[in-house]
């Protein structure tokens, strides 16, 4: 089965400079979701919600990636690694680059998000 990234967009972005001092650590939180729109049999969506609490700013980003597969999406596909592991692994570098560029252009310390091992995350969620 072939997966193709059709497009992606930032759905929500919130950026605030922190003026008060006291924050000692950078915190990064990531959550993902995927869904299967009822109006299409071959398109599915993968979403990311990222929260970066830097020493100097807060950044919240929500984005959605649209993927197309060359076959009808079945329950077997829905339960497979494709929407949980393969598609997020394809999509995440785009978001990572966006956040790096955004923070660089914003004049703060550029954020280089770590690489994410989605296989490991999925295994951990499945208790493996």
């Amino acid at each position, binding site marked *: 089965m072939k997966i193709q990234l059709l497009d992606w967009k930032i759905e929500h972005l919130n950026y605030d400079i922190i003026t008060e001092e006291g924050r000692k650590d950078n915190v990064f939180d990531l959550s993902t*979701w995927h*869904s299967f729109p009822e109006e299409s049999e071959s398109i599915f969506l993968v*979403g990311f919600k990222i929260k970066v609490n830097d020493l100097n700013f807060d950044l919240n980003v929500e984005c959605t990636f649209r993927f197309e597969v060359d076959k009808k999406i079945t329950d077997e596909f*829905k*339960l497979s690694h494709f*929407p949980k592991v393969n598609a997020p692994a394809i999509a995440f570098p785009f978001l990572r680059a966006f956040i790096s560029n955004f923070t660089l252009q914003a004049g703060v310390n550029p954020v280089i998000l770590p690489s994410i091992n989605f296989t490991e995350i999925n295994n951990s969620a499945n208790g493996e």
Partner: protein
Amino acid sequence: MLNIVGYHGTSAESAVGIIKEGFKNSEGENEWIGKGTYFFIKGISSIPSDQALEWAIAEAWDNSNRINIYNRFAVIKSEIKVEEEHLLDLTIEDGVNILNYIIEAHKNKIQNMGRFFDYKDGYIIDFARGEGLLDIDVVKGNYYIKFAEQRKRGINLRTANCTICSVYEPNKNITSSTIVKEGDI
């Protein structure tokens, strides 16, 4: 034959089991409309799938231990088919009248179920089904359901915010089920 589209919110792990093996009825003591499999359906809300998602997230939280008992939610979309005469619709007067009739006609028996019998819709429906008084497969009704936000803030309205349905024999009335959304909590 009526076709109802319902959305069921649960953990991602349970969703896999449901897709592979089918639904198992909810067996709690405090069910809204009887011991069945519950779905959010169109009615008060035009987007019942979002309510199923919110429900899955709210149910993950174990308030006693202050932890999520699961970390990934899933929303399942199911097609429910039911004969009109086997649907009890508590969103309309006729349906409410049936419920009231059962209470009135069998008040002695119902009261004997317990000294402090609590007249909850679910108990009455389970009683009526158990006694063979009510030949129904599916019940729908409007209820106020507390999701994570309402639970956190202690919001407890009497105004219904959801239309839900309970399916008593999932294998009989649910013709298809598929996962429509899954994600981290």
